[in-house]
């Protein structure tokens, strides 16, 4: 398969503008500029592109929600990539930046935004500087600025750095951070397509989502749908890590099975151990029991829930049988407690409580009652938080206790 | 006739020979039971600091409204109790008091306790107001308040607060 997103693996130096232009660079953008904006949105809708940041919300549908009575519009690319086990956006931005920027440009054109932003996590300052250079090159090549390619459309793209907070990957917390306030999620509704950046309609899309857009416009929705499944079309970059021989990013069509990813591409489990659990969505996952049924499940947004998980951002962490899950959840809970923004009570207090409980259980000082209590606290948090961080912090804990009870026998 | 007389006086004679239960108070005093509720005492810790933190929960609990508390602030130079707060004024009107012990139950530090002194007397109503001087215990080692303490040692009002679930 020719890579659609990780094109640098096929073509050297595609992060140089001359190479990119030679490889039909910006053809998608040029085609879009000649289309009606609503047609661009419809094409993306027809292609069924789903958000690659974890929620899987159809991108074209999100674009169509933009409030046309409230101007100006903005597009923000969510490059906060802080989910543990996720490292796909970084590769795109470092190695195939122009396709990403082209995707932003097409999206901005479709929703009528004249300013677009890339919000990068604070630790990506080198990537941000690199993107700044690429944006300048793109402008020099005539694909940004006023009256792009002789059309009436103008666009400028800016980068913006965060400051080390996982919560700023949540779209409304991201917008708050961009506005210079504390990065804490807002009350929703209203959602960003109605009131987003500075209370103006804003599309917030993941880097990978936006990077998929040029292909869709260039080759049409039908061309995109050649890959993947009917409900989950296209390709996805799977960030494979954990107990595997070949961790890394793998771009595969949606619908590929876990088995193929982990054993064929990932090279299987090292040191002759056997696979125990799969965390398909990074630290925010439910832990899936790695039996044959799960391994043969297609990795797409519909099928993974059948085995008790969510595809999420497809940051597949492989857990082998040498890992005791009571240790693993101390790690996830430490992460979530550290990253909780503290705005809402259940996540702020509950994550602290769960962290203490997991530590106690792992250290051996816990009792049966503590395990029960941990599950109770997790259920107590679910459904009551302001945003999904609190919700997802409980997934690993609950599924570990319920599906792997032998690791919690005191 | 004599028999009836003697029969009737049987109880009287028996009583004459029985040991009397009368205690010759005040030369002899009977021990009161451990939970007897007599005059109040304000307790101290072993280091001499007062246990009372001036919270006025005893005053709130008192059904006779007999207790009056004014709180003051501790400094490390002049410290009366652990923590920030102490009772600068603590008065109990012993005539109003009904010796129910609710104040003892309400006290969070175990400062106020009803002890065994029951011969409480005064010659004017004003003397019935017991203040801190009258109620604070003295320790055997003569440690008293106010004290000068090292900063940072007595930051909590209840110094060795244990897990309430352990009680």
């Amino acid at each position: 398969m020719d890579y659609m997103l990780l094109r640098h693996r096929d073509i050297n130096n595609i992060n140089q503008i001359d190479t990119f232009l030679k490889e039909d660079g910006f053809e998608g953008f040029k085609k879009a500029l000649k289309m009606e904006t609503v047609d661009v949105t419809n094409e993306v809708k027809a292609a069924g592109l789903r958000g690659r940041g974890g929620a899987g919300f159809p991108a074209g549908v999100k674009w169509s929600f933009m409030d046309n009575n409230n101007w100006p519009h903005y597009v923000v690319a969510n490059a906060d990539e802080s989910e543990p086990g996720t490292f796909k956006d970084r590769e795109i931005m470092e190695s195939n930046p122009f396709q990403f920027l082209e995707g932003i440009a097409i999206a901005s054109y479709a929703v009528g935004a004249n300013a677009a932003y890339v919000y990068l996590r604070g630790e990506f300052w080198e990537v941000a500087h690199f993107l700044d250079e690429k944006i300048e090159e793109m402008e020099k090549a005539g694909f940004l600025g006023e009256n792009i390619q002789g059309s009436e459309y103008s666009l400028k793209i800016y980068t913006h750095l965060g400051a080390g907070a996982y919560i700023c990957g949540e779209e409304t917390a991201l917008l708050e951070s961009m506005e210079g306030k504390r990065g804490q999620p807002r009350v929703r509704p209203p959602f960003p397509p109605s009131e987003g950046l500075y209370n103006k309609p804003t599309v917030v899309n993941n880097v990978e989502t936006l990077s998929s857009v040029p292909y869709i416009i260039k080759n049409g929705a039908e061309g995109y749908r050649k890959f993947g499944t009917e409900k989950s079309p296209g390709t996805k970059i799977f960030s494979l890590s954990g107990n595997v021989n070949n961790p890394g990013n793998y771009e595969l069509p949606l619908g590929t099975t876990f088995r193929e990813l982990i054993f064929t591409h990932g090279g299987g489990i090292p040191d002759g151990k056997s696979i125990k659990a799969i965390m398909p969505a990074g630290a925010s996952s439910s832990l899936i029991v790695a039996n044959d049924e799960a391994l043969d499940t297609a990795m797409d947004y519909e099928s993974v829930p059948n085995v008790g998980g969510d595809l999420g951002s497809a940051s597949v962490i492989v857990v082998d049988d040498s890992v005791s899950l009571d240790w693993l959840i101390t790690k996830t809970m430490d992460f979530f407690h550290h990253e909780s923004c503290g705005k809402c009570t259940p996540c702020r207090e509950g994550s602290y409580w769960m962290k203490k409980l997991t530590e106690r259980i792992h250290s051996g000082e816990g009792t049966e009652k503590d395990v029960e209590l941990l599950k109770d606290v997790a259920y107590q948090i679910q459904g009551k938080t302001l945003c999904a961080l609190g919700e997802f912090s409980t997934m690993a804990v609950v599924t570990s206790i319920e599906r792997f009870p032998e690791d919690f026998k005191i | 006739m004599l028999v009836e007389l003697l029969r009737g006086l049987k109880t009287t004679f028996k009583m004459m020979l029985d040991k009397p239960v009368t205690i010759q108070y005040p030369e002899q005093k009977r021990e009161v039971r451990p939970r007897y509720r007599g005059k109040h005492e304000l307790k101290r810790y072993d280091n001499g600091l007062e246990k009372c933190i001036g919270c006025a929960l005893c005053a709130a609990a008192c059904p006779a409204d007999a207790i009056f508390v004014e709180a003051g602030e501790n400094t490390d130079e002049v410290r009366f109790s652990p923590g920030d707060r102490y009772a600068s004024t603590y008065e109990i009107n012993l005539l109003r008091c009904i010796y129910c012990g609710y104040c003892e139950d309400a006290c969070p530090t175990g400062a106020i306790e009803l002890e065994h002194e029951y011969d409480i007397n005064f010659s004017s109503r004003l003397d019935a107001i017991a203040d801190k001087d009258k109620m604070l215990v003295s320790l055997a080692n003569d440690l008293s308040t106010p004290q000068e303490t090292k900063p940072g040692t007595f930051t909590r009002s209840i110094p060795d607060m244990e897990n309430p679930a352990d009680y």
Partner: protein
Amino acid sequence: MTKDITLTIDGKEVSVPAGTLIPDAAKKIGIDIPVFCYHPKMEPVGMCRQCLVEIGRPAFDRTTGEAVLEEDGSPKINWGWKLETSCTNPVSEGMVVNTKSEKAVKGQNEMLEFQLLSHPLDCPVCDKGGECLLQDLTLAHGGTESRFNFDEKRHAEKKVALSDLIWLDRERCIQCGRCVRFQSEIVGEAVLGFEARGSHTQIMTTSEPGFDSAFSGNTTDICPVGALTTAQFRFGARPWEMEATASVCTECPVGCNTVLNTRRDVKTGGKVVVKRVMPRQNESVNETWICDKGRFTDFSADSRLTAPSIGWTDAIASAAQNLSAADEPIFVVDGSLPNEDLFNIKSLADEVGAKAYCYSEVGGGELTTKSGTYGKSGAGDAILVIGSDLYVDAPIFWLRAKQAVDRGATLIVATEEETRLDNFASTVVRDFAQGLEAAKEAFSKAENTVILYKGDDALAQSCADLNPTSLVGVWNDANTQGAWEMGYEAISDLDVLKGKTVYVAGKSALVASALEVAKFVVAQTAEDVQIAVSITEASGSKCVTLPSRNISESLGTFTSAERRVQLFHPAVPAEGDTLPGFVITAQVAEKMGVTLDIEAEDIFANFFDLSYADLSKTNPEEKLLIGGNCYENTQGVGVQL
């Protein structure tokens, strides 16, 4: 006109204006939804998650827009799959809310358990005990045992001085954000903020000096726990030990409604003293706020004269004698006296044909007796603030101007120096003439126009020439407006007293100034006159002092700068042998052959067409719904003239 929306809460129907939030709608029918971060005067944030309820909305067919009905004809209700925060949800037609279902109650209890996890066991030493929202909700929703490991409780700094006036206890803080939002939303001075994140989130102050706001005390009222407390009242008394008396603040002419909390203390030798000042709700004057000047008023004047040095009989006799003997006795007051005192003095002056002056550095008194309230100005209105730094002179007026601008009013500030109101104004000038010009232009386009001025008669006249709807003088004293209403003549210096026999009533500064120039002074004051007496001896003039009662000891009324007459009640017993000012005047008058009333209520009935009963009417619509320790106003909201 906002439409009324009907919804059902716990099976009961209620109709409220559109835009009302669910907790307010529930309170209207007596249902209390537990809240922490929600406050009716601030935007909801849905942070604490305490107000979780089940919400169901009527189902609509997406294509036809018709309501979907059940078999029995009732509308089909789509229930949310999870609990929602009621504070962030405005009411909608046909909404059904369950606040007491098993699921909702379980959610509320669980949220409370989370709040209590690391909250310290401070109730015995915490000033908030007895008026603490967390305590009340714990009784309603809390468990009896904590499942949290005691040793794992988080600890933090216990006594942080945010400013000289306010202490912060970081362990008690439940991170509800009410204080931060109050400062940024209502006051517009964001001097408080959060620092760190997650379970380390804490409050800090961003200003230097710390917590630099004239309204900082209000955060201690709205804080639901004892995290923010005042230094002045620290460990003062328990709320249930204190009596609450309705009063009016005396620090400036706004006339904020207050409550004086009093207790008989041993420290004071058995005297009943004012322990603290709390706000009393009056939506027309101060809403639920008071400024720090009023809150931290010092009521402990130890060095007061509590009886005339020669005894009352001789003192009254001497006063009457000297006044009768004088050719032109003069009566001069300042605006610190209540209306009853002012009226008796004016009556006496009129009866003996003497001049009655009110000393005021701010002129234009007679011009302000026609117009009225500053009101709830908003869009379409224009406000001119000229010659006065409201933040210092009348802080709550400042707050009302800022809120008027939030609602869309145009604000023009014309002051010689920078003021804190400059940031909110559309036009700021440092010259009065320019200010008046700008105002003229703005007023021509505005519906309601208000001028707040502080200056001499000339300035007042220029302001009046603009014909504003309301002309409000920012006086130096609380009841200067009352003096104008009664017809006192204004003077801004005391030269007219030179060599005369004078009846002076007011603050000790006025008495001292009078003593410097007058021949004989009858001094009626509630303040310390030691200075006065020593001046007397120095200047050789004679004086008799008639100590009167101060406001916390009296029953009386004030007229605010907006011409609102408000009643205050005595909170503490009178000191020593002091008498009410109007009684003193009546006794002197009697000796001079003039009969005056000696009951406050009777005197009041003489000059306004009102009675104390009128002033004591409350407004049930105004009842504070949720939040804060501001006292409910059950003693009356006063009457707007």
